């Protein structure tokens, strides 16, 4: 069944699913989206795949089948009703005394209602953005009823919304409307011919106030288009005479019957046929060009789901179980107290006021400074080494490794986390990392310890 879906049906199902999601929230669609993404097609294709999958899962495709069956049944009922109406129309037009049928009543009975309905349709075409006639809606309603499927109830609104969005609704409903009238009028025409062939009718016209001249003019001008098709038009003398009494003469009856048929054809069947053809053409043209417009804002919600503009590719190089750690150490003995700054920028006033015995070893930042400092300290291990760090910088592995390496050159090492305004998270991280290295750290400079070795 899925393969046999026409583009219209596919779009219709997608629209039904969308409307459902609009009202009751998004459906669980992870599988649908995965399948849609796997198609690697265009966005439109992917949206359709997702829509169809959800429609199939939720039984909408079966519902659509039922709906279509219902619609077909409704259509047959419509055709049947059109045929009955046609017969009734013709019979009523020729009812009354057969030998004195009022020609204008017959004409009005045959095409009057049709013309009113046609004018109303044309009027709504011109002045309203959306046309709907009770007749077409009756067909939709009947299709719903005949589908006998609860889910089918969701289908009809979706079809209307879909067709409306693609400007096809008026043509689609117009097809039904004009088709009905066309069948009715054709049946009426056939019935009329049958009646005229099997019974004898005489035609008269009557009026209290209209002058016979106007009558003559009316009949011949109305009849002239039919005359081009070979239908007879009564001449003025015949009309004048028919105004007095129904003519017995066979020729006059033929002419009036032919005129009546011509009128039905020209003012009934032909306009409806033209409208039918117009609607059919617009409909087919429209259906052929029917595409799911993925740029429509209504689809935006699903766009990222079926065609994500970014996808995670996952981890391509896994994290190690543990990161390399540095370990601090210490010399057994050393001389002097040394203050050393690591990676301090010029925003920090350096060196601070130092106690007398403390040696200022400056700031180390570059590779060369690091190397020479490490060599210098290894040659003359200090008894106490105070390393100043700016906690505004992040405690990265390189810096921690350097601190650990420096600590191994001195007998005792402590860290001074300068009292700069650092983010709490960074400061905490420094403290944690230094705790792991088992190095004492302070926010205020431990001058007493540095000078004398006691806290």
């Amino acid at each position, binding site marked *: 069944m899925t393969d046999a879906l026409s583009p219209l049906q596919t779009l219709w199902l997608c629209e039904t699913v969308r*409307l459902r999601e609009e*009202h009751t929230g998004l459906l669980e669609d992870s599988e649908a989206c995965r399948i849609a993404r796997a198609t690697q*097609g*265009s*966005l439109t294709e*992917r949206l359709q795949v997702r829509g169809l999958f959800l429609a199939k899962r939720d039984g909408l495709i079966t519902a659509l089948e039922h709906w279509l069956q219902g619609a077909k049944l409704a259509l047959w009922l419509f055709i049947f009703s059109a045929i009955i109406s046609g017969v009734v129309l013709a019979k009523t037009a020729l009812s009354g005394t057969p030998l004195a049928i009022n020609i204008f009543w017959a004409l009005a009975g045959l095409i009057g209602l049709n013309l009113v309905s046609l004018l109303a349709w044309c009027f709504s075409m011109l002045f309203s*953005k*959306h046309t*709907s006639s009770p007749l077409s809606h009756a067909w939709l309603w009947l299709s719903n009823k005949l589908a006998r499927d609860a889910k089918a109830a969701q289908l009809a*609104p979706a079809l*209307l*919304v879909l067709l*409306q*969005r693609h400007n096809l*609704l008026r043509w689609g409903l117009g097809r039904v409307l004009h088709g009905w009238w066309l069948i009715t009028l054709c049946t009426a025409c056939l019935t009329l011919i049958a009646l005229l062939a099997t019974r004898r009718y005489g035609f008269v016209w009557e009026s209290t106030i209209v002058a016979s001249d106007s009558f003559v003019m009316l009949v011949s001008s109305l009849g002239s288009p039919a005359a081009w098709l070979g239908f007879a038009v009564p001449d003025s003398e015949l009309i004048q005479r028919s105004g007095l009494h129904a003519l017995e003469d066979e020729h006059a009856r033929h002419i009036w019957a032919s005129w009546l048929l011509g009128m039905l054809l020209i003012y009934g069947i032909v306009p409806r046929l033209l409208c039918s053809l117009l609607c059919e053409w617009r409909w087919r043209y429209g259906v052929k060009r029917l595409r799911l417009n993925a*740029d429509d*804002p*209504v689809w*935006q*919600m699903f*766009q*990222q789901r079926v*065609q*994500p*503009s*970014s*996808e*995670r*590719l*996952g*981890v*391509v*190089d*896994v*994290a*190690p179980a543990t*990161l*390399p750690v540095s370990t601090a150490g210490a010399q057994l003995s050393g001389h002097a107290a040394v203050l050393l700054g690591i*990676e301090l*920028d*010029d*925003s920090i006033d350096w060196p601070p006021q130092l106690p007398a015995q403390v040696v200022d070893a400056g700031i180390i*930042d*570059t*590779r060369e400074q*690091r*190397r020479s400092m490490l060599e210098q300290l290894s040659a003359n291990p200090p008894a106490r080494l105070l390393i100043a760090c700016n906690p505004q*910088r*992040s*405690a*990265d*592995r*390189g*810096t921690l*490794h*350097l601190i650990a390496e420096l600590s191994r050159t001195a007998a005792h090492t402590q860290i001074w986390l300068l009292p700069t305004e650092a*983010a709490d*998270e*960074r400061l905490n*991280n420094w403290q944690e990392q230094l705790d792991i290295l088992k190095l004492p750290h302070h926010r205020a400079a431990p001058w007493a310890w540095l000078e004398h070795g006691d806290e």
Partner: protein
Amino acid sequence: MNKSLAPLKLAVVGHTNVGKTSLLRTLTRDVGFGAISHRPSTTQHVEGARLSVDGEALIELYDTPGFEDAVALYEYIEQLPRSGERLDGPELIERFLSSSEARQRFEQEAKVLRQLLQSDAGFYVIDAREPVLAKYRDELAILAMCGKPLLPVLNFVNSSEQRESAWREVLARLGLHAVVRFDTITPPVDGEQRLYENLSLVLDSQRPRLQRLIDYNQAQVQVRRSAGYRLIAELLIDISACRRSVHPDRLEQAIQELHNDVRQREQRCVEALLKLYAFRKDDAHANALPLEEGRWGDDLFNPATMKQFGVKVGGGMAAGAATGVGIDLMTGGLSLGMATVVGAAVGGLTQTFRNYGDRLKGKWRGERELTVNDSTLRLLAIRQQRLLNALELRGHAAQEQIQMETPQEQHWRKGELAQPLITARAYSAWSSLNGRKPQQDTERTQAVESLASNLIQQHTTP
């Protein structure tokens, strides 16, 4: 696959804690990508993400661990060539990667370099608040050895402690002249565009592809915007059309129910908008939104909220319980005013008559009609538009900027309500708040669409 069709591979590299993962999250609009924290070494693996346009993969971005031990690594690499041997940059890096230290002490750095070697170019993310320390210079020197084009991305440039000029000077000395400012927390509106444009300066052969991505992103802004305004239009029509008949005895309770339903309906719109812009309540960027925990903090029916948003509390509106609700006492809803009647006549006649029929019946029974009044609609419109604007700027707008008066808001405060909203007043069937599914007729669809386009117009031509 053809080489030119293979996606462009970009490695995002830099020191630890400079916002590499944040940059990836912003570029992929994937707020759940990777992990972000203030601690160093948050990302210890290499993780990829693919950017596609129309289903075609254009770019693969790789998030890498932070470079942390550059000084020691540089020293190590320097002593790698055997005496008399001359190795160029990539050869040195290859030699390093095959050494055992690349699996031990410098394992994280090796991951970065390996990824950069496999990529077409790299984004070098810089925390512009940092001074240009020697370790950063060494880091850049090592990364430059890979022989791949590098585009420095200055992050945190909106911070007061930024040292952008110092960084630019150093980068220029290294021959890196194309530099992008891109604050990942508060990205500029055209930030992404400038990022890709600058990337095409260093990767000239990829210009068409990057241009395609830029165009796509710009088109997406429009698409998201119109989808967003459609959601807002749906909300406003839904609430404007809401009309409930209640018996006078139940009035108090019914007003409470109406309040609750309207609040919930607004929250649904907020959630849909957040989803549309791929936001999560706990997202870092969400702090910059005027929301608290993904909802509006101030109650919709609190007169103070109206005042705060500059909406005049309607003259006839009762204070207290009935705030924001219109109660039609006298006429059973027939006092809709000429504008509504004209608006209604445009729609279907049968529907209008059915509607009035129901109302007449209600009047017969002595019921009262509850509607949500104009002031509340105005407030809703202004609030949702502010949210949409904030979402579009993705947290770019700071709080004071969001409070800014826009002519668009002025219009909603003082001007006449849009015609579709006035029309909706006459169609209770359009509302989902009346206990029934809203009627999906063409008139409703059209009202929503025309209101949405109205809102977009106001947005683009303030």
